[in-house]
């Protein structure tokens, strides 16, 4: 690993925590190597002068449309719950959160 590596095991664990994708320490070397390869690749962008350039977040060129604030849909409780792995009395069920 080159010494300018951006992602080490601690950073990886933090990313795993943030994204809820747990890190298995035994298999993490390859992942760290891959991620640093990608980071090294994307850092090419530092060569580009972006002084006073506005960031582009959408290519559409139109403003987000606004609609009337009225109910145009509804009564979809059953549809919404249809694919839930666990449900009860019209609710999603999750493991106990508060002791």
């Amino acid at each position, binding site marked *: 690993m080159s010494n300018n590596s951006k992602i080490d095991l601690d950073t990886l664990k933090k990313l795993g925590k943030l994204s809820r994708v747990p890190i298995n320490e035994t298999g993490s070397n390859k992942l760290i190597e891959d991620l640093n390869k990608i980071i090294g690749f994307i850092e090419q962008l530092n060569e580009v002068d*972006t002084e006073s350039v506005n960031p582009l977040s959408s290519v559409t060129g139109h403003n987000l449309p606004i609609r009337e604030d009225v109910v145009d849909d509804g009564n979809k409780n059953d549809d919404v719950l249809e694919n839930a792995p666990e449900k009860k009395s019209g609710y999603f069920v999750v493991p106990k959160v508060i002791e």
Partner: protein
Amino acid sequence: MSNLLQFSISETLSLLEKKEFSTQELVETYINAIEKTKDLNMYLTTCFDQALEKAKISDQNYLNGNQRFLEGIPLGVKDMFCTKGIETTASSKILKKFIPTYESTVTQNLWKEGAINLGKLSCDEFAMGSSNETAAKGEVINPWNFEEKRTPGGSSGGSAAAVAAKAALAATGTDTGGSIRQPAAFCGVVGLKPTYGRCSRWGIVAFASSLDQAGPITRNVSDAALMLQVMSSYDPKDSTSSNKDVPNFYNDLGKSIKGIKIGIPEEYNSDGISSDILNAKDMTINFLKENGAEIIPVKLPLTKYSLPVYYIVAPAEASSNLARYDGVRYGARIDGNSLDEMYENTRNLGFGDEVKRRIMIGTYVLSSGYYDAYYLKAQKVRRLIKNEFTEIFKQVDYLVTPTTPTTAFKLGSTQDLLTMYLNDVFTVPASLAGIPGISLPIKLDKNKLPVGIQILGKDFDEQGLLNVAKVIESCASFKDTPNGAAS
């Protein structure tokens, strides 16, 4: 009627109208073709019973003279499109057994015009990949030289392979960085990525929302026009969908290209690009010249920064979009002792390696302290790339480039990540700029594999793209069929 599989959409429609064969026969023939090509691993789910039921309705409509625009045309659908009542997994374990209660706008548009769904086609997991090797149910095999087990490309690998193998008359695809055009090139078929906003994204499993766009994969350019016409629509349910009128793409095909200006960007070249691909580009330039187009060499110096921008923007958006897979509302759930543990177990077993890598990169570039250096920087360079295209389209009407640096490689042969990412080096720039692009086959290379050429155009000028493509298509006269195709 001898072999119904050989006809294009427009031919099929006219033969159905003349009652040369029935929709029932047509659908049965395609079901048979799907069975025969099973070893290519293209379909994840099939819905033959429903297809045969719909065929009855189509036959009735032809009988009464009430046929719709695509009446009775049997299609395959990339597994990124939600289909009501039919399992939709985006080729991921985490969406196993997900049965949408609604239909995507694009597929709804197709069914409303009488097209018939044969089934759901494999792709890279969440459309993240260029080889179809990240699909949870295993890679699709390219029907060209099928015994060599080559990639169909990705992410719409199942769609492109099925159209080439005659296991669907046409298919839907989605393109985020080249996922329609690259597999189309690898499989010797036509793939069109429309302008961002032309087709509604509603009901399509989200990967990178500012880039995702649906489009058709077809056997020829006319079929792409027919499909695009039906797939396109303004949709209030997608806030980025465009309310521009949808032209009659098919009827307006065939205009002369005399006097139009075609730019050839010198940067669309790379180390290791094959001589067959360069030769296909030269052939295309000659076809265009013969038809009166003016060829102008142009420079797009920011091209090399497109992939680095893409590998910041796409994973950033993906990491945010994929946060929804939490084992609570749909898809798989792996239990744990706490809510967090349940989330982690579910995501750990549900996502494949490439998806996890992209979630990690996306989380990194969006995280506090790095956001400005990576994500914001990428959005700024994206603006410059968009501007570069805008400027170049003041000098020329279209750009012509190779679609890919190589032809279809062998499955498992590309182990290095960045080498894999380089597959999309010629397709990603148009995705970042939101402009339309089409890939069509020109010739076979020395290994008897198809070579694709890409045409790029201005925002919402799909009609022009199709016209140029049609001219090139008739000159190239690419008529070969893969040895893995059904017959």
